[in-house]
């Protein structure tokens, strides 16, 4: 018998009991829908983490000064001034494969023409752009002369360009940072939001020497050349863990720490933070996968149950079909196609529900959603397999009926 004829019989049988067919499908609809939503949310979470890694730059270490104890009071991390610009210079010189950039950070009111804006001021070195994998969109970076001479030049982020210049070309314009005029020499590329959700493009970078002496510095900081953090990148082909241990050893040596003393700085491997986030989103996806598989299993059992009822109800029909010449495989095919039709229609409805649900979650909960055609195809294929698996037993039961018994069945 041809598949088309079998499909015709199956659709007619399912149409006979519309409510029953719909309820039977529901299990598969929910199961497949859950799979689609799960994959969309899981892929969205993974894409977000990947974006964060990309935005941060890869193979990164972040060094901050350690906690300070003052009169028995433990002050927060980064409160001491144990880290200096010279540490960064030493790292660049002593550790092969490490690129270090010192950062002094602060906020300031800035003015350009008659626009003003409060933004983050970063005093740093040209290495910072390398470390953060942050290209310039226009203009140039700091020259060695500007670095050593506290040049009054700056690089501006996209948000600052928008707020101060209304998106017009800011190069060679003057921005007054705390009343000190700085000339814009470059525009930073778009970086987007950080892992913590802050706007990374709301930034002005100046040479660290200029930041210290003209904008952010206090007398103490100027004396100690202290910095708030040092970003270190392991260059391609260099092991991050190796760089990390060399870095720790170098800083301990430079800070003259005895072996029994703890670090007076705080070293964070950012990859670890993001991997933890990725792992937690993977656990969530796994949990959803478990729920979805249970739902699909229950849906499959529902199909098997209804198919068994259907075979019993239609025993006389099966007997008649056998009497007029249906072979074992015709009957087997008829009921198998019916079960697969149920599960496939359920699967397609589930895809519709899942896509709609994922979009609703994206719209209302604001989660990032990634719908992949592969996941949809996989879910439909899974529904098909469920139909074959759970439809086979009832179909075989029908096909094995004795025609004499079946015709006599009341």
């Amino acid at each position, binding site marked *: 018998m041809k598949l088309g004829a079998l499909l015709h019989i199956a659709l007619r049988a399912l149409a006979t009991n519309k409510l029953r067919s719909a309820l039977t499908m529901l299990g598969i609809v929910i199961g497949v829908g859950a799979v689609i939503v799960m994959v969309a949310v899981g892929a969205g979470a993974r894409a977000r983490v990947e974006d964060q890694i990309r935005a941060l730059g890869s193979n990164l270490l972040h060094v901050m000064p350690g906690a300070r104890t003052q009169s028995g009071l433990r002050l927060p991390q980064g409160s001491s001034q144990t880290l200096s610009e010279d540490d960064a210079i030493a790292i660049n010189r002593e550790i092969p494969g490490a690129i270090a950039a010192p950062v002094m950070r602060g906020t300031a009111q800035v003015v350009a023409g008659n626009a003003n804006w409060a933004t983050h001021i970063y005093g740093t070195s040209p290495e910072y752009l390398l470390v953060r994998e942050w290209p310039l969109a226009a203009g140039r970076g700091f020259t060695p002369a500007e670095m050593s001479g506290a040049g009054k030049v700056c690089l501006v982020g996209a948000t600052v360009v928008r707020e101060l210049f209304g998106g017009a070309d800011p190069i060679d314009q003057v921005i007054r940072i705390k009343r000190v005029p700085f000339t814009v020499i470059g525009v930073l590329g778009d970086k987007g939001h950080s892992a913590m959700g802050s706007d990374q493009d709301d930034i002005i970078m100046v040479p660290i020497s200029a930041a210290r002496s003209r904008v952010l510095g206090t007398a103490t900081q100027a004396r100690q050349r202290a910095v708030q953090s040092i970003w270190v990148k392991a260059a391609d082909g260099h092991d991050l863990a190796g760089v990390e241990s060399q870095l720790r050893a170098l800083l301990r040596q430079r800070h003259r720490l005895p072996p029994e003393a703890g670090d007076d700085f705080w070293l964070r491997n950012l990859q670890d933070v993001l991997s933890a986030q990725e792992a937690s989103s993977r656990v969530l996806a796994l949990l959803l996968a478990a729920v979805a598989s249970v739902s699909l299993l229950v849906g499959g059992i529902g199909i098997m149950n209804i198919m068994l009822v259907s075979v019993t109800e239609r025993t006389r029909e099966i007997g008649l079909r056998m009497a007029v*010449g249906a*072979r074992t495989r015709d009957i087997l095919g008829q009921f198998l196609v019916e079960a697969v039709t149920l599960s496939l229609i359920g699967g397609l409805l589930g895809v519709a529900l899942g896509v709609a649900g994922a979009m609703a979650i994206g719209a209302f909960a604001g989660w990032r959603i990634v719908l992949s055609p592969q996941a949809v195809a996989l879910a439909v294929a899974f529904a098909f397999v469920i139909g074959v698996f759970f439809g086979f037993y009832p179909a075989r039961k029908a096909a094995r009926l004795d025609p004499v018994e079946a015709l006599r069945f009341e």
Partner: protein
Amino acid sequence: MLIETRELAKVYRMGDTEVRALAGVSVDIDRGEFVAVTGPSGSGKSTFMNLLGCLDRPSSGEYRLGGRTVSALDGDQLAEARNRHVGFVFQHFNLLPRTTALENVALPLVYAGVSKKERNDRAMRMLERVGLADRAHHHPAQLSGGQQQRVAIARALVSGPLLVLADEPTGALDTRTSLEVMALFHELNRQGMTLVVVTHEPEVARFARRVLRFRDGRIE
């Protein structure tokens, strides 16, 4: 001979006891015969009909239909034999509900692998033959009992079988409709169709030219 049976026997096993439903029946039926099979219930006439219709296999003995030994066939070969050579008419019509008369008549051709167009043409010709061409697109529930049985007879004839087996074909019909159905059988027989009809009604048996009376699994 169209039908030849030799010491045809069927034994059912029910727990420890064996029931001899058919205890060695040898009978020949020629082409174009109209045979009635009668006997009390449990006499073995239903078992005999199931064997003749290739629905069941004998425990022992031999059955030849159209020169071919049926008793040696497997399940799918039996299905093919039923499809090609035997037409069935049942007491309760056994039409598929929510399916048109035309599709019901065409059902055996579906399993013979006949194309849809040819199926419909042949089914329509059979409906004309039983006088129901104007009811082709009605569902069984929209037809009277007599009409339903005529649809069932058209279905039995559609694949051009060697014989038609009818099991109490008038059992569910009133007297007048019964006579109509038997007149149709008589007409078919006159046109050369071999008929075997199981019945316990003497009026029906009178239409047949030969009567096989069963008792205790044997022909009297």
